[in-house]
């Protein structure tokens, strides 16, 4: 297992190197002059030139690339031009926020979509099958910002059961001591139930918004995979041996159906990580998506590079995790790896 993990990480190095090069070049090709933007609208050409020199942007592209590599080797992503803060520091505080949101959304989606998909397959053609189709179609057709606003309107404005959509914690709670960076988990670890609840209350609506969107692919894949498994020869053989329905559905069909569902889960997860910018905006959630978009708009290249590189690393880790899960579920995978 450890050897497999090592091999997979080593195999990911070339793609990460590729990401480093491509992000560097892309950010240099972005329209707009960072020096001019940073100097402000009233700056003189000399002031702009001075800033350009200070940022190292007057050097040749290969020289800039070498400087960038040197920074990366020291674990630095450079400074953000707009905030003046190190990109690394921003990412370290913002990434857990995005992760917490995505994980919670995914957890909700899995908790709803997988049982729905199973029921829809076991009772194919019944009302629950049709209901699943409607829920899935509705979930994927509503844009996340719309679902988000709708939820805020209903639960915050009308029913007044949700807190204001203002970030990860209300102003009355203090940030829990950081361990994982996930507020709910950190508060629980610190034994602070009140803060955990407050963080959970803040998390609920944005996570729900993301989760509703992620429902569709998961429910459909679960249904399709379950139908395939239930129609397979080994399920027929299991029925011929008189095995109970529960055992056939769970041990025989579902475990086999989990393989394609896991693949979809990985894809949905990576998609959500990058695509939750709109949700972050609606709920003033201090995640990395909104950070990257703001930087992109003003040609602030360092955060964009840092963001893309972090995402690439996350994708590598995520795929590795999915492959490990695959290996646990499917004995055939171990032989092939």
């Amino acid at each position: 297992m450890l050897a497999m993990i090592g091999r997979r990480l080593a195999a990911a190095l070339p793609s990460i190197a590729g990401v480093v090069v491509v992000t560097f070049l892309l950010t240099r090709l972005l329209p707009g002059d960072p020096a001019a933007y940073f100097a402000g609208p009233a700056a003189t050409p000399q002031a702009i030139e001075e800033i350009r020199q200070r940022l190292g942007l007057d050097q040749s592209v290969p020289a800039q690339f070498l400087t960038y590599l040197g920074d990366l080797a020291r674990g630095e992503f450079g400074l953000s031009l707009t905030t003046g803060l190190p990109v690394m520091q921003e990412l370290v505080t913002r990434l857990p926020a995005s992760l917490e949101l995505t994980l919670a959304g995914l957890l909700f989606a899995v908790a709803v979509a997988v049982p729905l998909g199973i029921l829809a397959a076991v009772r194919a053609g019944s009302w629950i099958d049709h209901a699943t189709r409607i829920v899935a179609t509705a979930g994927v057709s509503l844009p996340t910002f719309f679902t988000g606003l709708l939820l805020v309107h209903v639960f915050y404005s009308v029913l007044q059961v949700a807190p204001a959509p203002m970030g990860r914690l209300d102003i009355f709670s203090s940030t829990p001591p950081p361990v994982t960076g996930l507020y709910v988990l950190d508060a629980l670890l610190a034994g602070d139930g009140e803060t955990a609840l407050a963080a959970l209350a803040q998390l609920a609506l944005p996570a729900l918004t993301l989760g509703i969107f992620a429902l569709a692919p998961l429910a459909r894949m679960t249904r399709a995979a379950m139908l395939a498994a239930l129609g397979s020869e080994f399920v027929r053989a299991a029925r011929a041996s008189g095995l109970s329905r529960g055992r056939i559905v769970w041990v025989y069909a579902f475990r086999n159906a989990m393989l394609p569902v896991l693949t979809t889960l990985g894809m949905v997860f990576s998609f959500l990580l990058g695509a939750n910018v709109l949700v972050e905006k609606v709920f003033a959630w201090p995640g990395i998506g909104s950070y990257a978009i703001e930087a992109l708009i003003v040609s602030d290249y360092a955060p964009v590079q840092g963001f893309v590189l972090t995402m690439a690393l996350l994708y590598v880790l995520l795929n590795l995790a999915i492959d490990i899960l695959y290996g646990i579920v499917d004995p055939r995978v171990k032989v092939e790896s």
Partner: protein
Amino acid sequence: MTAPPLLAVGDLSVTFRTRAGPVKALERVSFAVDKGETIAIVGESGSGKSVTAQAIMGILDPAGRVEAGRVYFAGLDLLRASASELADMRGREFAMIFQNPRGALNPIRTVGDQIADVLARHEHLKGAAARDRAMEMLALVKITDPRRRLDAYPFELSGGMCQRVMIALALACRPALLIADEPTTGLDVTTQAAIMDLIGELGRSRGMATVLITHDLGLAAEHCGRIVVMHAGHVVEDAPAAQLFAAPRHPYTAKLLAATPRPGRHLEDLEAIPGGLPDLRRADLPGCRFLERCDRAGEPCRAPALDAIVTPSPDGERRVLCVRPLMGLAA
């Protein structure tokens, strides 16, 4: 006739709902199996052999429906038994092995666990006791090093081994009837012989009745005392093997025999059976579904329903579904 048969199928009709309309897959299928007897159901692909097996086992696809008929097993009508009664009997009283053994085993569960699942279901054996019994079963089907094979996954075993595992699984609870649906298709010739010998031997030593479903008349002749020939969802002939081979009564059986290779016969001498199976979705299917391929067919064959002609014989009765049966000697 002395004791009642172990399995008696009477006038069994099965229809499949499809997008192109209902398919009359089985019509008035009747045959019987005595305790410890080995019979064969033969016929070409699509003749309804497997559907018959699945209908008896109660494992038809959801689209398939038993329209009419009786399936008596040890005096109990399986078609009127409750789902839980049936599930209690499946795997314990009657069991089934399948055409593609690798596909019939759960790919991600060890073979030991799969045998243990059946033992847990019917004999309430758990843990080490189930494991020991599973190992005994693997040894019984002549798998070498059974203790180690318990933890093997189907993909780690050859096709022949998978079929042995399937047999071990089917026989784990000592069923009185085994339905073997083309158990040797897809296996190489030596493995085929070994598997058939194993089924025959276990059947004899356990007094177990066996229904062998096959398209191979030679295989049926070698292992079975009685042969049921199916064509397009009908049982066209049901006779003791020796009589069937000596003097087939149904034109289809005769043509099937003429198309079967045997020693001392050249390949060029084998005759192909003209035409194909009729479209079973047709509303106006004639009483004889073979008539379009038959050179003896006439107007009476078009009657909407034919009755089988039953003639007694020393080895049990013969039945033929034909208004103009062959009366001559060997084809």
